[in-house]
């Protein structure tokens, strides 16, 4: 019994060091925004792997067109008397669940708040195209933080993306093309 007892502090210390090192490595891992476009018919492939830290540094440096100081100017965020920011504020306090469901001959649309994420699903029945958009709520909030009514804060959204777990943000699957946009810590686009 005695040797086991004497080993315990050393084991606890090495476990603590191992845990700290693992957490430090996890915290410092570079996060990537991946885009992959494939065309099964023409066998075309486009893949882009952008380190988020790179995007975070570049976006504030761009002062061109509608993108200035890390914020993008959106022409009609109050389109047709619908205040998008007010809707987002309402969504923030709303309980999780389905908000919009549209089913007609042409397409099905579903907007919901699930597991702290805004989820949009569109099915175009004619082209058999499926679009799934999942945006973590922190990113939605970052997009409208410190902005005027007609702006989106891209820089803040990218910073917020650094802190979300591995997730698929956009997936489009159709007969012609498949598109996937996702976040993880791998520097390749392996799924």
């Amino acid at each position: 019994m005695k040797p086991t007892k004497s080993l315990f502090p050393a084991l606890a210390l090495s476990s603590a060091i191992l845990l700290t090192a693992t957490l430090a490595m996890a915290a410092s891992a570079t996060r990537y925004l991946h885009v992959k476009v494939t065309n099964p018919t023409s066998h075309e492939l486009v893949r882009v792997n952008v380190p988020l830290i790179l995007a975070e540094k570049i976006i504030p440096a761009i002062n061109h067109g509608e993108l200035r100081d890390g914020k993008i100017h959106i022409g009609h965020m109050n389109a047709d008397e619908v205040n998008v920011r007010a809707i987002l504020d309402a969504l923030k306090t709303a309980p999780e669940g389905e908000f919009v469901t549209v089913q007609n001959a042409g397409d099905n649309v579903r907007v919901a708040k699930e597991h702290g994420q805004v989820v949009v699903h569109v099915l175009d029945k004619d082209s058999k195209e499926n679009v799934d958009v999942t945006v973590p709520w922190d990113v939605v909030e970052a997009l409208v933080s410190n902005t005027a009514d007609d702006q989106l804060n891209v820089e803040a959204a990218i910073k917020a993306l650094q802190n979300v777990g591995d997730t698929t943000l956009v997936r489009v699957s159709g007969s012609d093309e498949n598109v996937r946009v996702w976040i993880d810590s791998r520097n390749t686009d392996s799924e």
Partner: protein
Amino acid sequence: MIFLAKLGIGVLGTALVGGAALSSEGFIYVNVQEKHPGGTHVHVFVPAALVPTALHFVPRHNFADSAHDMRDALPIIDAAIPALNECPDGVLVEVKDPGEHVLVTKRGGSIIVDVNDPDETVHVSVPLIAAQSAIHQIAEARLMD
């Protein structure tokens, strides 16, 4: 004999220091191979440290248009290159279709572009820091006149 030995050490030392200085910023490597029979093969391997010196010998008027465009992009380049330098190595962009393959990767302190199409293969490797200083030099070309 001692004089010759001292001279040899001096020459060797100068060559070593010069070589170290030239290779301090890495090397620019360009390899173009045309695929048709008898096609040209261009193979360039240049110390990146030579680029700023070489640019001094290029007449300024040749930079006129590009200098203006590059001055506008300087803040983005100055933000992007150091950030890219700190990023881990990996593939940044890949475009592939049945006839062509384009690959842009970051490896070490360099950005590497590989193109493989039916006519030729192209491989370009440019150290990021050298690219940044060259772009600055071209952008400031008109200002120095």
